[in-house]
């Protein structure tokens, strides 16, 4: 697995914006994750490091620190459930358990069809509408109740079928 030439050029284009190449690391990781369908494959880490002239362990350190970078493949619909204080108080953990049941996956796992993955994330900054779920980079699903879970999953499946049908 290697970085595409296009991606390399895209990362290089960021260099002039910062005093040193290592500062581009976060941006580069975002680009890589985007191109790879939602995760940063560990095999690419040495290449990213070489491009930014840092050590591979520096890349892994940063990629593992931030929750938004994934070290394992995620589903086409990646469900990020906030379980910080406000959401937890409003039943977020129950939502996670229900999602696990409906999808047959545990946090960090990928459903058999590759469609779904669930992750507990840190505060999404929407405590007033807790509990909150974010699918991929889309707008938040707010005030999620336990009963909404099945509908939500069905909707995401339908959307996927529609997309494939097109």
């Amino acid at each position, binding site marked *: 697995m290697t970085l595409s030439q296009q991606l390399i050029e895209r990362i290089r284009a960021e260099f002039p914006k910062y005093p040193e190449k290592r500062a581009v690391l976060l941006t580069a990781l975002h680009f890589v994750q985007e191109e790879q369908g939602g995760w940063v494959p*560990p095999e690419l880490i040495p290449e990213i490091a070489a491009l930014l002239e840092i*050590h*591979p362990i520096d890349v*892994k*350190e940063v990629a*593992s620190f931030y929750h938004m970078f994934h070290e394992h493949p995620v589903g086409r619909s990646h469900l990020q459930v906030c379980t910080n204080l406000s959401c937890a108080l409003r039943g977020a953990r129950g939502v996670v358990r229900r999602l696990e049941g409906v999808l047959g996956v545990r946090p960090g796992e990928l459903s058999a069809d590759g469609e779904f993955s669930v992750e507990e994330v840190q505060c999404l900054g929407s405590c007033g509408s807790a509990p909150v779920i974010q699918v991929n980079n889309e707008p938040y699903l707010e005030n999620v109740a336990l009963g909404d879970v099945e509908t939500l999953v069905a909707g995401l499946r339908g959307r996927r079928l529609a997309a494939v049908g097109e």
Partner: protein
Amino acid sequence: MTEAGGPDEKPATVRVVIDGREIEAEPGAPLLQVALDHGIQIPHYCYHPKLSIDGSCRMCQVQIQGQKKLAIACNTPCTEGLVVDTRGDEVADARRGVMELLLVNHPLDCPICDQAGECHLQDYSFAHGSHHARTESPRRKGLKRHPIGPRVVFDQERCILCRRCVRFTQEITQTDELRVFGIGDTSHIGTLESRPLDNPYSVNVADICPVGALLSADFHHKRRVWFLDTTASVCAGCANGCNIEIGTWRNEIQRLTPRRNDAVNDTWMCDAGRLGYGFVGAADRIRAARVRIDGEQREVSLQNALDAAAEALRQVRATHGAGAIAIVGSAHLTNEECFRLAAVARDEVQTPHLDLAVPLGTSDAFLVKAEKAANARGARDMGLVPGEGGHDLAGIAAAVEAGEIRALWVVGSRDLEEVIGGERAAKVAAALEVLVVQDVQPSYLTAAATIVLPGATWAEKSGTFTNHAGRVQRIGGAVTPPEGVVVDGELFARLASALAGGAVAAFEPAQVFDQIAAGVATYAGLSHLVLGAGGRNAGAAANGEA
């Protein structure tokens, strides 16, 4: 380590008051270190005197007069008039709080943990903890008995994330194998899969790990530390002379650990030195003297072998002259033994053909030196060098092959084989009339020898080594030699008496050292007592240095 290092110029000091005690401190010195140096115990995990300040464990919090919040002592530089309290209720509360957080996920598996007995977490838990847990949630699971490198075992559940190991690989070895991955609750120490913790100094992380997270694979589940007897000594692996402690149990070495000496090795030692003690208790250790009778080596008493060796050497001397005898000494012998051997060569054997076989290997820019023996410099200082008109090692080998040298006495045969090569050693052995080999383990030459004398290892001796830089340091006998084996210095004394007649002068290292001090100019003024735990530089006393 007040005994280590020379006196620096005294900088202007500042006065700080810790727990009511007025203390003179170097300006800017870490308050924690100053307190520790004055016997004021401030608990700490992440602080290490040879690593940068991390400030992550929060255990060393103290009350500083005029400051509202507690401050960490490790990152508080000493300034004039600093007034510090380490004993107040607020400090005790903070320590209890830190302990509680550190123990939330700690497995408390002390009964099966190698660190138990020398564990900061354990000690501080007793001293500052609260003895019961308020949490009921399950403890975090992590890697157990994970080989994070070939010589280090990692237990992720015990780790308290002080990052001492990370800083060690960044600042000391600069190999950078370890990092903290993850965030918050998922934080853990790890390596890249492709790059395990495998550098020549890797096991030091086990020493500096304040808990039982990083452990020496060699010592893993070997012996409870409170059963160990420890002896201060010096590593015998190379010419650097790293200060060590030898941990023994029932007369067997269990582990070697570095002992701090800022003039030599700080608090570190290399893995090769640390793990290179196996020969002491090796199964094939030479435990008895042997004499070749009718073409075959037979076990005899030590005294018989010494008498046979003396008789053989006397005969060669009578027939061919003393110049037909050569002696190859070992850089593994102590100064006292070398001094004694040099005297035997000069006075009893009376040959000038005397030299050392010093095995060479790789070196690095940190501790590891090329000479793979502890005392090459000391041996030369003691006179294990060719005498007037005498051959050096290469000359001795050539003279043996030319038939000029008929008898050879070798101390440390593997070193000789390594230095001149196995093939050459075989030729030398074949050309000799008499080959006396004094050694601890078998080799080609011990098999070819006329007489084999069992030697002793450095761990069985007391005496001194002189390192590559001329620092004279004491070693201590940590174990007794196998039954029937005596230290090499004693063998030299007995052989001297067998050669020249007369009573055996007992080999007393401290007394021999006094003779060295009287006879070797650069050692003047030194004695075992003066050397103390940290050693002195040869020549320093003569130059009026401390």
